[in-house]
């Protein structure tokens, strides 16, 4: 089943205690990279956002060291393993994995759709103007005609 799965994109964010030394954070990142490699995934990006203020208290901390990763995988168990590792490590106080590929796909689709529509629009406007006149109101059209281009220009 896993072989048939499309490649999925995940956002992985974890927060370490603010007092965690840099080495420890690096160690966590390397372990994650290692297990990702083992399970056939790929880490696209790793960003260290540094120490940021938390919106609420987490494990009695008001600040945390944020690390953001983008993981690609065709194997669903990878996320399970990564989350297990994050749960086990003491320095990590919070983590979140989000599957993003469907939303990115939707984004691309909408972008393409818009491009196509933008390409079509100028052609449609010219023949579209005349049929707008025969609308219920019988007396109005004479007054409307000058207004039509103004309304469409908006």
């Amino acid at each position, binding site marked *: 089943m896993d072989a048939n799965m499309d490649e999925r994109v995940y956002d992985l964010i974890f927060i370490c205690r603010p007092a965690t030394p840099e080495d420890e954070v690096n160690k966590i990142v390397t372990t994650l990279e290692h297990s990702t490699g083992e399970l056939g995934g790929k880490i696209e990006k790793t960003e260290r956002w540094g120490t940021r203020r938390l*919106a*609420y208290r987490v494990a009695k901390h008001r600040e945390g060291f944020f690390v953001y990763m983008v993981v690609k995988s065709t194997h669903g168990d990878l996320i399970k393993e990564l989350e297990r590792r994050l749960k086990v490590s003491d320095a990590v106080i919070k983590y*979140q994995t*989000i599957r993003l590929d469907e939303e990115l796909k939707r984004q691309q689709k909408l*972008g393409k759709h818009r491009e196509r529509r933008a390409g079509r629009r100028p052609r449609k406007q010219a023949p579209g103007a005349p049929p707008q006149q025969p609308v219920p109101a019988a007396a*109005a059209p004479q*007054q409307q005609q000058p207004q039509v281009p103004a309304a469409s220009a908006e």
Partner: protein
Amino acid sequence: MSDQPAPPAAPETPSPSPSHAPRAEGHTGGPPRRSEGHGGGQRREGGGPGGPGGPGGGPGGPRRGGKRQYFRKKKVCRFCVEHVDFIDYKKVEMLQPFVQERGKILPRRMTGTCSRHQRWLGEAIKRARNIALLPFATEL
């Protein structure tokens, strides 16, 4: 705040005749348009949200009835204007204007966001909350 009518029914200009105007912006959700033209029955439907004093129900001529004492500016979805196809939960500065001081998600009727973007926005805010980028509720 308490008595805000749900659809942002705001005739931008009183001048355009009702026959072609709704067609031009049909995709924006079609606010009920109070037409000054003919058709008294339609005018009644438009007066659903009920402005202060309910001038829509007035027996006066149809031309006068359309004129409002107050003008509500038509709210436009900010995301539609900028052609946003994906609302990123990591961009907190982008989400912050849609969250109240105490952390509540602002309703559509306040911000003018379209239903699709409000749906995405709500999801993004909830994700940001989960990873402590936004508060669930601010502590006192």
